[in-house]
Every structure is written in C-alpha cells, then in structure tokens.
C-alpha cells in the first residue's frame, strides 16, 4: 500500500498540523485521558480532523479509539489537554451546552443502539424530536433519509425484525438525519459479515463526499485497504502513525 506518513505523534509537542482557519472540524491538543490513576486510555494526543475529511482510527482493542471518539462527542472530558470541536472547547463545555454540540455530531455504534420498542421510523425520528421538528415534517424527512439507506419500506417495522446490516443502516440514518458536521462511527461493522460491511462502509464513505467529517474507529484491515483514506493508528493511548493514501480525496 502506498501511503504517505502525514505526521507522527512521536514528536507530539506543539500544535497539530493546522488546516486553514475555520477548516478544522475537531482538534485535539496534547489530550490525555485517564480513568484510573496512573493508567492512560489516551496520552498526549494531538490531532486535527478537517471538515469533510474521512479518517480511520485504527489500532488493537484498548488502544484508545473509543475513548478518543467519546472525547469528541463530549461524553467524557479529557484529563489533560484541550479539544476544540466545531469551534467550541469541548473540554470546558457546560453540561447545558453539551446537547447543542451533540446535535451537530452523528454517532454510530457497533451494537446499533436502536430502541426495540419503537419502529424504524420512530428510531430515526428521535434525533428530530430532540430539536422539536414538527411531526409531519419529521415524517417526510425520515422517509427521505430511509430512502437514502434503502429502508423506506421497513419504516413501520421493529428494528428487531431487521438484519444486522439493516439495523446499522437505521442507526446511520438516525445519525445523519440532522445533517451533522461530524459523523463518528465506533466499529460500525464489527457485528456484520463481509458483504454487509462493504455495504455499510460505502454508505458511511458517501457521507464524507457531502461535506461531513467522518471518523471511523475500526481494526478491520480489509476496510483500511479498500478505502485508502487517512488512517490514524493508536497504540497504548498514543498516536503511533498518521497517514493518508496518495491522491485520495478527503
């Protein structure tokens, strides 16, 4: 694989490579995260994710991929360092401001996180309910979104009646319904077979072409080889490699 090493955190001091002002979706400055004293999930990580960029976070289990995503959507605060997400300092956000930030970030998980008691349509509409979208408008938008992921005909069904791939498509539809600036996906294909993996990854990759910053945490080497996007490798909480495929569009 021909790849260019963009920069390494072996020399992490100083600010991360800066994109032109206003072009950064998320920036991490010397971020460390420790859940237990003396043990670090992330250590002195400095990174920048540009608007519309597609980035893979790779590394073995426990490398800190999920912790990094949780810091970006303000589910956690860093133990040290600063995180700026969509122009806001996520490390200092008040609890009241966190929901506002999250409305601009879509999140997809390995276990889909769908509500079994609600229909597909209602699951997707949750993100619209939160921002007070009127019901009729919400239904129209959900229909359009489900159409994009090919599930409009399943909208009145329970998620439990869908296959794993279909459930993940519902989760992606919910994450994208508010046209987020950033889409975070934590092992989105971890529970899927290879065919469905490609289907879901194509859907996620398509999102980046529409200007959304996409950050996908995965340890699936097949995906990395197929999509040839920027990939940031984490090991033991540190960035050990940050590279992009030549000529790849962000």
């Amino acid at each position: 694989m021909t790849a260019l090493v963009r920069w390494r955190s072996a020399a992490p001091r100083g600010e991360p490579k800066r994109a032109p002002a206003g072009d950064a979706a998320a920036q991490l400055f010397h971020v460390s995260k420790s859940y237990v004293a003396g043990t670090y999930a992330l250590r002195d990580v400095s990174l920048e994710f540009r608007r519309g960029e597609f980035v893979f976070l790779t590394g073995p289990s426990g490398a800190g991929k999920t912790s990094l995503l949780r810091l970006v959507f303000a589910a956690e605060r860093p133990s040290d360092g600063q995180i700026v997400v969509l122009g806001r300092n996520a490390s200092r956000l008040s609890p009241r401001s966190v929901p506002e930030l999250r409305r601009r970030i879509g999140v997809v998980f390995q276990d889909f996180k769908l509500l079994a008691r609600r229909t597909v349509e209602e699951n997707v509409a949750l993100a619209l309910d939160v921002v007070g979208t009127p019901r009729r408008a919400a239904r129209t938008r959900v229909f359009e979104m489900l159409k994009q992921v090919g599930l409009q005909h399943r909208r009145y069904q329970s998620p439990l009646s869908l296959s794993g791939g279909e459930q993940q498509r519902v989760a992606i539809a919910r994450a994208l319904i508010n046209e987020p600036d950033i889409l975070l996906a934590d092992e989105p294909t971890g529970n899927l077979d290879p065919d469905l993996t490609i289907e879901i990854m194509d859907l996620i990759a398509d999102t980046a072409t529409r200007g959304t910053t996409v950050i996908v945490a995965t340890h699936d080497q097949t995906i990395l080889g197929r999509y040839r996007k920027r990939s940031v490798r984490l090991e033991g909480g540190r960035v050990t490699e940050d590279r992009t495929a030549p000529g790849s569009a962000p």
Partner: protein
Amino acid sequence: MIRAGARLLYFARTSLRGIAATPGTAIVATATITVALVLVGAFGLVVLNMQALLARVGDAVQVTAFLADGLPEADRAALVRKVAAISGVARTELISEAQALERFKGGVGQGFALVEGLGTNPLPASIEITLELRYRTPGDLSRVASAVASLPGVDDITSGADWVEGYVRALALVRGLAIGLGVIFVLATTLIVSNTIRLAVLSRRDELEILSLVGASRSFVNTPFLIEGLLQGAAAGALAWALLYALFRSVLPGFEAGLAFVLGGVEPRFFDTVETAWLCGGGAALGLLGSAIAVAAEARH
C-alpha cells in the same frame, strides 16, 4: 411556537408510551399514592365535619347567668346593662322565671305533668349572654363567665366553655393527627413513588442513553418522566376521591347514631369541588415530586 407544540406532543406521546411500557411500576406508584390519599383524606373528612359542628354550635354557645331569688326589677335591669358592657358581649336577654317555665314546658314535652305537680315555679330568672363571633373561644367564654359571676345579684353561672374547650381539643388532636399522618404519608409515599418511578427510569436507560447521544437536553429527557408522575398522581387523586366517596356513602349509614352524637345533628358532608381539586392536586404533586426525585437521583448516577 410550532417547535414548542411538537415538543409538547412528543412529551405527551412519550409519557403515555412510558406508562404503557412499564404498567407494573405505573400501577404500584398509582396505588401507593391512592392509599396515602385515602388515609389522609379520611382524616380530612373527619376534621372538616368537626369544624362544621364547631361553627354551628358557636351560634348556640352562650353564657347563662342565673339571678338570685327576689332580685328587684330595677336591679335586674342594671345587671343586664353591666353585663352588656363587658368586652366581647354581643347580646343579652333577660329571661324571667315565668319565661323560663314556659321554655321548660315546651322542652320537656311528656314530662310537663311533673312540673305541674310541683305547684310553684322552681326556675330562676336568668340573663342569656351571646358573645361576638370572634370571642366564641373557650378562653373568652371563661373570661366573660367569671366577670358575670362576680357581679352582685348573680347566683350561678353556666357556659359552654368546658364543652367547647373539650371539643376544640379533640378537633386539634384530630387535625394534628391528620397533619402528622399526612406528613408521614407524604414522605413515605414520595420515597416509594420515587423508587418505583426510578425502576421505570432504569428500565428505559437505553432510551435515555440514545436520547443523550442525539443531543437531548436533560429537561427533554426528564420531562416525560415528570409528566408520567403527574398523571399517575392525578389518577390516584381521582381514585382516592372515588374510594372515599364510596366509603362515605356505604359506611356512613351504619354509624348514623354515633355520628349524630359526635356531630350534634350536623349533617355529615363530603368534599366540595375545591377540596376535591386539592385532593387530586395533592396526588398530582406527590407523583410529580416522586418523579423529580427519581430523575434527579438517576441524573446523579
């Protein structure tokens, strides 16, 4: 405005869906509040009826000063003027020996023959003293009775002070019990309801997590639970009212004789519209409080 309406609809829908999703916890919460309201409501009814009796007997409570035998008319009139000048006295009425006998005859009915058999009128003249409304308290009754008793020409005195004092004490006791039990029931019910609703919150933790992920504010997440508590409490209030009314109508006839003695002829009454609103409102407030504690505890968790 449209967004606010959409949110209200969402909250209403989610609350009803929440109740339907966890019917067990909804039933336990509603039943707990109902039991507490029935117990407090029953005491409330007793207090209300006792107060009604007190208000009614207040008109009849008076001090009666029996005059010495052979007191001249002029002295009687002077005595009436002195009594009328005492603070708190609203009205005085001089009852002569003959008038007293006439009243007695009217009062004893069949026993009239006994009085006839005596030959002479044994009843003394008296002054009936009615107090102003605000002075119809055990303390003022005693004060006026003492003042009247010290006047020359007054042989004996009777007042309802002892009876009123005893009744007021009993009323205070029942009211105190109602308040004390009310506080205990409110605390116990709030605790039970908050724990019950917390079970509902826990059973929907996945939903709360997802809502939080898609950017729901804390108030957005909590409001449906608060509405659930409010609805369950209001339903419990209505249920408690219905149970109390059924008890009032079915049990009351069996205790009519005893009630007639306790209430002295006052017709027992049930809650009026305002009191019913308080009962239902109290239930709703209990449900709301329980929910608020539950969601606050969950938020801390």
